[in-house]
């Protein structure tokens, strides 16, 4: 009974976003941060597919998203000729992880990349060639990209497997934090004081949103409040950290094209929030009767 009601709003949000993007395309309306809405749309495509078709299809759309992000990352970083085997290993880790999400095999999903990929990729890098100098740097570059852009994003998929509405709650909360960050952005300089103000504005909003969504998510009210406090914090930390990586690998805000930083830039707020929120919800839902 419960699942029948919950399908409709997901599809409605997806259709609304699709219509919006279609209209802007047809009438050539230029809106700022349009690419961000594309990525939101992708997430809702995944949720709608999961609700109407099957989770199997939805999770492979997420795999494509991971692939796009990782491809962009490897385009931007400086890699050696002989790291190509390691990069191939990184790409192959995506289906390796996704398959365990698809079949709800939590134990393997959670170790697929941190154990098998992180041990396998260094080996592959050493197989690539005889040059020793720079090996550690290469392994670090490949592994961090894989961790952030595949493993962390993969948690959204597993969260959607547990409950689509939990994943929607996460996506909408992060989107609100991003919206507030965009609206309150002043100049190019990054100041901790402005981050603090942003946090104090977005935390009440996320608390209200999480409480409002609790009708579908089924999260008890005190957990809603705590999640509402936690998510903006994680988003702020994530945005701050990824900003440093972005600057280092040469992503500039002036020309955000796909392949030149658009994918990573739009996903950056999810990277820290997704795994932590996933484990929070998993921990309490398994131990508490209130869920």
């Amino acid at each position, binding site marked *: 009974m419960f699942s029948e009601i919950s399908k409709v709003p997901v599809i409605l949000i997806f259709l609304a976003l699709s219509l919006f993007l279609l209209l802007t395309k047809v009438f050539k309306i230029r809106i700022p941060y349009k690419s961000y809405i594309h990525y939101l749309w992708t997430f809702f495509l995944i949720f709608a597919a999961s609700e109407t078709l099957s989770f199997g299809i939805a999770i492979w759309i997420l795999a494509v998203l991971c692939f796009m992000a990782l*491809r962009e990352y*490897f385009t931007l970083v400086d890699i050696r000729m002989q790291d190509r085997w390691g990069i191939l290993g990184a790409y192959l880790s995506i289906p390796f992880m996704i398959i365990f999400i698809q079949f709800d095999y939590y134990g393997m999903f959670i170790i697929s990349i941190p154990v098998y990929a992180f041990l396998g990729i260094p080996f592959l890098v050493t197989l690539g060639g005889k040059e020793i100098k720079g090996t550690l740097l290469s392994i670090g570059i490949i592994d961090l990209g894989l961790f952030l852009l595949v493993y962390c994003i993969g948690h959204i998929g597993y969260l959607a497997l547990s409950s689509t509405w939990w994943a929607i709650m996460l996506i909408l909360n992060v989107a609100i934090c991003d919206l507030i960050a965009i609206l309150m952005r002043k100049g190019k300089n990054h100041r901790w004081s402005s981050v603090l103000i942003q946090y104090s504005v977005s935390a009440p909003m996320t608390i209200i949103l999480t409480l409002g969504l609790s009708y579908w998510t089924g999260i008890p009210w005190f957990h809603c409040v705590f999640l509402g406090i936690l998510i903006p914090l994680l988003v702020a930390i994530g945005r701050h950290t990824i900003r440093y990586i972005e600057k280092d690998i040469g992503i500039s805000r002036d020309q955000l094209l796909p392949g030149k930083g658009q994918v990573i830039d739009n996903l950056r707020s999810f990277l820290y929030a997704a795994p932590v929120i996933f484990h929070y919800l998993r921990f309490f839902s398994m131990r508490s009767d209130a869920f």
Partner: protein
Amino acid sequence: MKKLTGSFSARALIHLLLLRPFLKLFFGVNVAGKKNLASLDQYIIIANHNSHLDILLLFYILPIKQILTTQPVAAEEYFSKWKVLFKLVNYLFSPIWIVRDREVDDPLRGMREALNSGNSIIIFPEGTRGIPGQIIKFKTGVGRLAMEYRNIPIIPVFISGTEKSFPKKSTIPMPIWNNVTIGPPQMFKGEGQDITSSLEKMIRELSYSETAKRHKRYKQPKPAIAFAVYGIDGSGKSTLSRIVAKKLSNAFRVCLVSDHLEFYENENQKELQPLLTEKVREALGRYAKTAKSLKQYKIPKLAELLLRDHILGEVQRWYTPDIIVQDGCPLINLAAWAKLYREEYFDAEVCARAIRILTGKREAIKKDDPIFKKFHELAALRRFRLDHMRLPDAVIFLDVAPAVSIQRILSRGEQRQVHETEEKLAKLREGYLLVTQVVEKEFNIPARILDGESEIDKLTASAIEFAKESSLREP
């Protein structure tokens, strides 16, 4: 060759429905400046060449109606190795085949035929895929062709990313974005060579704007070229080395290791972060100058020379110069001074052995070699592992008669050092001459002996000329 016409064919469909979506979805392609190509009917596309993907990418950017009327230039002997591939390439791109090695009457004939029949062509003027990510010197054929067809616009295109996604010698293409930057169409007036060089410059400029912000790893700086000027005291080596350092600093970052450390850039001296070792060395040097006898002089001078050699490493590490100009070379000084202490025993063969020991070639000289009995210092240096002195990459010996040098020392008004007598300087001069010969013959290091009594301008000119031809061939 008949003109290829028609806009609808199986070939065009393969391009549109198979190749383009594959490139876009598997690799990802960013195109900048597409409107530069849009309104043209006939053109010559010039692009850098890194990978076999390049040709696919260049067909990716073409307007649909131009797919069938554009022909790339390709090397026949490479593709003809595999028959199926040859046929496929021939069908998809209908290239103008070029035979690379064989002597042909005119390699440009095929291109002329294509252009005369109204087709457009694609040329990779580098001629080969070359080093990944680097543009090599353009071949001159492009310039000649452009001179003949002045009414056909030339479009410079820069392709990046293919050197990572499908580089030479790799078997598996990797999904990595490719960027194609199309420059504005060009019409040229000048001579063939000027056209080639200006096209090369254009592609390089496109490459700078494309790759400027790219992530780069920290690269180990190139080891600096050490260039030593030496001679007996009062030969004017300090003056010469300073002038040479200043002159060379027009094009390079130069560090002068003299009585003090000096750093030059664009003929200006720069402030330097002081080195502790340098302070110790200066103090030791001052102490050695006040020695009363050769015996007292030996140990502090040896320590000073060792430190002076050690400083070369520190200078390289902290200041990262392109060139180090040495005023006196510790290794050569040590070797030449042996003449002063053991004249009867010292000859070319012994000198070569001593230099081998001092530069740490332990395998070449055995432990029980007689040289260690004659020169205890060498045994001690080896025992304490101080035998890693650096042989410079080029040397200049400034030759002055001892009488002249004594005169110069006296005219400076300084206190005379213990070895600065005419007899001893004559011996030292012989020692230096011997070492110079040994270094040139045995160690294949460019060396030149200059007459220290000639004018300073002349000296400087010949020293700089020598420096450039010997060690600075590749900056």
